[in-house]
């Protein structure tokens, strides 16, 4: 096997980052990033779902008939998302309320399906699990970067703690959707420049 655990892990975080390079998971990257706490929970949720669905799909990969492959993948992903939704509702109700419909929408996050199709389908369980975890981390890091800028300028806070001086006027646009487009676009542009050059 050519791919070691380390290369798989690092590729997802930088060279093959799901958001910056593969441009997947953009919808939620725009939607939940006006507040760092929500973003962090969303990231942890995605890491959990991607890791375990990759693990399960990989473990079952020799049994899954090719013609119903995608249906089975969606079934597995949906199961983990519902588990996550129930756990959040039971133990972190305020975050569940803040994330609202976005938890359910993890099902449609292309990163999970993408990792299932591109990786878990053809690799061993342990490696697939690591691949899922690192894809989730790669996604979370980019989202946290966007959320950091948006929360800092939009509310003057970081994780709800005020850091800007008292006279600071919040930039309302940072809380609204358009700012996410600008910031995410800028981050992708800056981060891809060295990656593209290397090629």
């Amino acid at each position, binding site marked *: 096997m050519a791919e070691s655990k380390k290369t798989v892990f690092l590729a997802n975080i930088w060279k093959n980052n799901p958001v910056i390079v593969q441009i997947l998971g953009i919808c939620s990257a725009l939607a939940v990033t*006006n507040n760092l706490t929500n973003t962090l929970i969303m990231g942890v949720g995605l890491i959990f779902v991607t890791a375990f669905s990759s693990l399960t799909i990989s473990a*079952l990969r020799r*049994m*899954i*008939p090719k*013609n*119903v492959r995608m*249906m*089975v993948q969606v*079934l*597995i992903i949906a*199961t983990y998302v*519902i*588990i996550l939704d*129930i*756990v959040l*509702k*039971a*133990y972190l*109700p305020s975050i569940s*309320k803040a994330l*609202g419909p976005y938890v359910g929408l993890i099902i449609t996050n292309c990163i999970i399906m993408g990792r299932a199709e591109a990786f878990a389908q053809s690799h061993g369980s342990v490696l697939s699990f690591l691949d899922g975890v690192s894809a989730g981390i790669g996604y979370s890091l980019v989202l946290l970067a966007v959320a950091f800028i948006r929360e800092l300028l939009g509310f003057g806070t970081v994780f709800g703690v005020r850091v800007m001086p008292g006279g600071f006027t919040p930039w309302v646009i940072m*809380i*609204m*959707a358009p700012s996410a487009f600008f910031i995410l676009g800028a981050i992708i542009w800056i981060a891809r420049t060295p990656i593209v050059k290397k090629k």
Partner: protein
Amino acid sequence: MNARLYSVVFTFVLTTIFVLCLAGINALASGTIEKNEQLEFQRSLVYVFNIAEDIDSISDEKILSLYGNRIEEITGDQTVYVVNKDGSKELAFAVQSPGLWGTITALVAFNEGGTKITGIDFVSHSETPGLGGRIDEVLFKEQFRGERISSDPSARVAVVSGQDTDSKEDARVDAITGATRTSESVQILLNKAINSVLPVVREVVE
């Protein structure tokens, strides 16, 4: 085995296993979830009646004790909650009315004479986050405290833009910028509460 049959059987078996897992987890968690929802509703009532010192940092136990000691619940066709404040009563009830995207459920409190709104809280809604969703914000909700109700049945409390709303006697509050339809929905919700529910509720309380 026939490949097509295998696909069907495999999918069927796998689905059954996963559904059973989910049902189990759901059964384990449903008690906690229900308790959370109840607590959330009671917290809302405590906020609407304005009987807690600091609603943001108050503990769950404090909410339960405030709810148990101060708030009286009268069940019937329309459940009414009553609080005694230094001899005068305040009453609250839940109202549902359509918003922009879905139903808005609000708890609204009135003074005993039914002449003033004393508090409002939105229990559930599906308005656009960041626009209509801002009806959840304290700045918006606090405007309603002590606001006099007008005699105009189509605008009991008008949610307006570009007008002076400072006085508590003018039956006007500020709308949310960029959320005209949601602001209108709140006005309609209050009309419904005051025109059709309040008179019935006041009879029940007396």
